[in-house]
């Protein structure tokens, strides 16, 4: 589904990604871990098409076509979803309005007609249970005055409603208490299926107790320095990132 080949990217002229290689097949959950500044969030933003991130070298293929030929919104409509590390507030725009605009943008892209208000509401009411949010949440302005936990749950709600093909979760666990963490993980797990892939970016092993990955990759200084199964995360937890950084930055592939 996603094939990242020798990806280099800079932010404000400063190289951050220095040759990432990664293959993600449908149905798989990949965890990406690594110390601060290793390029985890940069990778997420590059995949989503954020303008200030400049790709300097390498290729990314998404469903066999060149990802970089697609605009930000085209990538979204083609099924790439980014759960933001810092979800943005949009005053005066209700959650449900944004959700509906997102769903209909994607349907339009696929040549489908807009969803009827009744069907949409029915669908959203079902999905909101997944993240244990009250219905009144839908009528509040997007992320405005939300607590950290509410913002992250809102990201998962959006993901559940949009039903992406590839979901990238950028440190969705940061700032969550254990109850919120469980709700978020539960939401993600219920969306796992054989057609959908996840890239879960996290700092801590803790999240991976609840979202059990198929593969774990460790990023350091803009490269994947180690890849393995879920046990790699446990190893990291025990030994810390220092253990990885001592190893030579090898070109490892899954």
């Amino acid at each position: 589904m996603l094939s990242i080949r020798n990806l280099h990217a800079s932010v404000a002229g400063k190289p951050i990604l220095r040759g990432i290689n990664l293959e993600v097949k449908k149905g798989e959950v990949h965890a990406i871990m690594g110390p601060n500044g290793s390029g985890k969030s940069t990778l997420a933003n590059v995949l989503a098409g954020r303008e200030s991130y400049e790709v300097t070298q390498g290729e990314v293929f998404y469903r066999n076509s060149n990802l970089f030929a697609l605009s930000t919104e085209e990538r979204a409509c083609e099924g790439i979803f980014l759960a933001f590390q810092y979800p943005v507030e949009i005053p005066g725009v209700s959650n449900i309005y944004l959700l509906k605009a997102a769903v209909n943008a994607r349907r339009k892209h696929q040549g489908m007609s807009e969803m009827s208000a009744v069907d949409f509401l029915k669908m959203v009411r079902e999905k909101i249970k997944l993240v244990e949010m009250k219905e009144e949440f839908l009528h509040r302005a997007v992320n405005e005055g939300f607590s950290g936990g509410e913002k992250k749950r809102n990201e998962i709600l959006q993901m559940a409603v949009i039903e992406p093909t590839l979901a990238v979760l950028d440190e969705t666990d940061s700032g969550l208490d254990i109850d919120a963490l469980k709700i978020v993980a539960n939401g993600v797990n219920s969306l796992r299926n054989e057609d959908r892939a996840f890239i879960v970016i996290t700092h801590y092993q803790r999240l991976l107790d609840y979202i059990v990955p198929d593969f774990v990759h460790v990023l350091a200084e803009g490269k994947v320095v180690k890849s393995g199964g879920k046990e790699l995360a446990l190893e990291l937890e025990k030994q810390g990132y220092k253990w990885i950084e001592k190893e030579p930055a090898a070109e490892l592939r899954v």
Partner: protein
Amino acid sequence: MSTSTQDLNKLVSREYKEGFVTDIEADTLPPGLSEDVVRAISAKKAEPEFMLDWRLAAYRNWLTMQDPKWAHVHYPPIDFQAISYFSAPKTDGPKSLDEVDPKLLETYEKLGIPLQEQKALAGVAVDAVFDSVSVKTTFRETLADAGVIFCSISDALQQHPDLVRQYLGSVVPPGDNYYAALNSAVFSDGSFVYIPKGVRCPMELSTYFRINAMNTGQFERTLIIADEDSYVSYLEGCTAPMRDENQLHAAVVELVAMENAEIKYSTVQNWYPGDEQGRGGIYNFVTKRGACRGPSSKISWTQVETGSAITWKYPSVLLEGDRSVGEFYSVALTRHMQQADTGTKMIHIGKDTRSTIISKGISAGHGQNVYRGLVKVLKSAHNARNYSQCDSLLLGDRCGAHTFPYMEIKNPAAQVEHEATTSKISEDQLFYCMQRGLSEENAISMIVNGFCKDVFKKLPMEFAVEAQKLLDVSLEGAVG
């Protein structure tokens, strides 16, 4: 997929779709202003003599006055002798729809304002003003059954001269300001509304102003009286053809609310704003004021201002009656070279009077947006309360937003609050929306509509949708 500041400025260049001209034979006075012109206008309308005297007094007063210079707007001096003060489609005062020139019906149809009652928006009565005259008022009979008078002010002068005489100029005196004086001398038409005691007007009332003729000024006069315990909701819309010359629109609107009456006045103003270089467009110099004359009365102004090269207007409320309420909700959008200096005055005179001001200014392109407001609490106004909120949103880096709130408080028991914010649409917000699949234009439109929500929700339903659409088309290419 660019979201940078330069690209924001691309979004503001859509065409003005109301910019067509209707080719119709007109009865137009030659350009120029003199006592004879004032007499000619009055004679054309066969007005009662008191009206001519009133006009002449206003004209003589105007001659002694100066064009105001305090607004934050820039334009070359206006040559008042180059303007024609009266232009009317050539017909002999059609009374039924069959007698209205089909070209006029077509014009309003094109503007989305059908004048055939069966085609009209359900529950909305329309007075259509074309250049200097009212061409048709719909649902007059339906309204008359409820005792409501809704007609052109020319008709009102013929049929209800005493009512007009009693109230005209009672809120905005003829010598109030330069443009109000000019209007008082040469006003040609406008709408008149009287809601009798205890009547809740069964329909939305609406006036649609259209400037068509070249080198012509539009000077309309609207007078609305809501008698005790009555209610009326009134809306005005305005458009004009695209021309390279500037055209002057100097209107006066007066509202009178008696005891326990409520007037809700909404404006969707979409005069031709001029082109990208600032050529052409309407000078919209308007005086709007309401008097809450009786206790517990209420006047509420809602305006969505997207058109005009220059806008200069301050819909105000005189809170005379005890416990009376004044409200002002405004969205003003300026793009290209547009300039808007708008706001309100809330004058607290009676006890326990309350006022609310919510102003949302959006600037794009080289647009300059000014909020100018006055909250005045007189000594007599015990326990007066005011809340003002002025928010500005900037799109791009070549536009400007300015806020001038004035307060004059003479009673120590007054509570006056003022909040103001200025923000830009952030790259983070755009990226967030676009990551959810929205195009940049849709993202901007959604964010701007969110910004304006507090005002839009005050508009009558049908018009809230219109206003949102208008904002969308105005913003098309407004960024970038």
